[in-house]
């Protein structure tokens, strides 16, 4: 799988990159929506995992954008926030995520 990980926390980017790399996937990381868009110019993802609260565009808006451009990609929103409304086509998971659950959600 080709996975894009978007989170402003470097430790989380590293942990998610490690998780998917060991799983045998190709991983790219970005710290915010702007960087993510730059990556997406040359990388077609099967899975996009994004944090909600980031500088600039928030994760939900980014995932909507991804949904329009890559309609077959799985979209997962990781939230440290108490409540995010349901969004069609997006799986919302709370932080801290359980690694197995996250992998399951990508399949």
């Amino acid at each position, binding site marked *: 799988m080709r996975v894009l990980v978007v989170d402003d*926390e470097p*430790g*989380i980017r*590293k*942990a*998610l990159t*490690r*998780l998917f790399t060991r799983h045998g996937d190709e991983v790219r990381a970005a710290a915010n929506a702007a960087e993510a868009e730059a990556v997406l110019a040359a990388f077609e993802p099967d899975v996009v995992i994004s944090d909600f*609260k980031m500088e600039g565009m928030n994760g939900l808006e980014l995932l909507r954008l991804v949904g329009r451009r890559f309609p077959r990609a799985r979209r997962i929103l*990781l939230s*440290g*926030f*108490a*409540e995010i409304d349901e969004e069609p086509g997006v799986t919302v998971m*709370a*932080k*801290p*995520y359980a*690694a197995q659950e996250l992998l399951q959600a990508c399949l």
Partner: protein
Amino acid sequence: MPVTNPEFPIPDGVLAITKRAMITAQLSAVAIVGALVASIWGNTALVAFVLVVGVLESIVNIVITLVVKRAIGHVRSEHLRAAFNTLCHIALGVVCGWTYAAWFLVPFGTTMVSAPPTRHAGRRVIAMLLITDAVALATGARGQDVVAFTGIAAFIQLVLAAYLALADKLLRERERMYLALRAAREAAQAQEHLASIGMLAAGVAHEVNNPMCFVTANIEDLLAELRAEPALPARLVEFRDSILPETADGIARVNSIVADLRRFARGEPQATTELDLSPEIVAAVRIARTQLGAGQKITATIDPDLHVRGRSRELGQVILNLVMNAIESSAERGEVRVRARAGASDVELVVEDDGIGMSAETRAKLFQPFFTTKAPGKGVGLGLSVVHGIVTAHGGSVSVASEIGHGASFTIRLPAAAA
């Protein structure tokens, strides 16, 4: 000034008017005594007597107001004032031969002891008039003067009583509004306090969750690597077998406390959904455990699958509030018992403590708004009236059983969600 609720600050204007009234009364007394003196001018001994009695009466009245009233209370000191003034007026009346100037003192005297307009005041005035009339008639006053001035005194009393009653009513109404406003403000402050705690909890939870993501992942991954290593150096075996697993447990505990905190964070108004109350109760007990005193404990027997329809955050707050109250009420080495089970058509939650219990009086007022047994400023809880409100809004009921010396037991029943 009638003493009403000690927490009600008597408005400045009222005190000023009362002071002015007293000064007016004093000046009137001086004017009347002056008129009396003028009417007997020439008789030096008599004038001296009148002046002495007049001054004496003023001084004694002032002393009664400032000193005696504090010692023996309002009613008794007014009786004393009435008795003393009547004595003085009778003395002056007798000595001056019941001239009109002397008679002025009688109706005037009744106005001095009329506030507040109670039955005591009424009886006082009647007694004053009867005694004065009796002595006056016995010492040579004219019958028609007695009737006239007593009539004037009675008339003044009726008018005065009406106005005093009006003033009293207005003041009490003001007091009632003030107390209601103050209570509303305190409730609003408590709500705000709760809201900001909720926001704080949400903020903390969010900040903690981020680093906990990679802390959890890193420890799990390290543990996995150590387990996968076939030839692990001896000094790392302890890490693989106990230290890292314990670390992972510690991390799991932190994560659940933070998750529980998030449950109670204030957020947007919730929709009513079907929910299982069981994990909410478990979470509340878990949070409450952190507040236990050194010798205290909680035992919880919580059945699974307690399905109700409601708003999870509100119900969670209600449960946490009851458990926290129970802990605070419990004895130093006491025990709080929490039981939750599903009945035929409802879900029942019982929270018991073994504290000092409460009187029937307290029990009756327990769910009233703004009722508290805590010191002002203490207690950040919802208040049992809000608990009551939330539970009844969910179609349920909350009740308490308690006796002094035998702790308290709160029971919440909520209708079960249709299977």
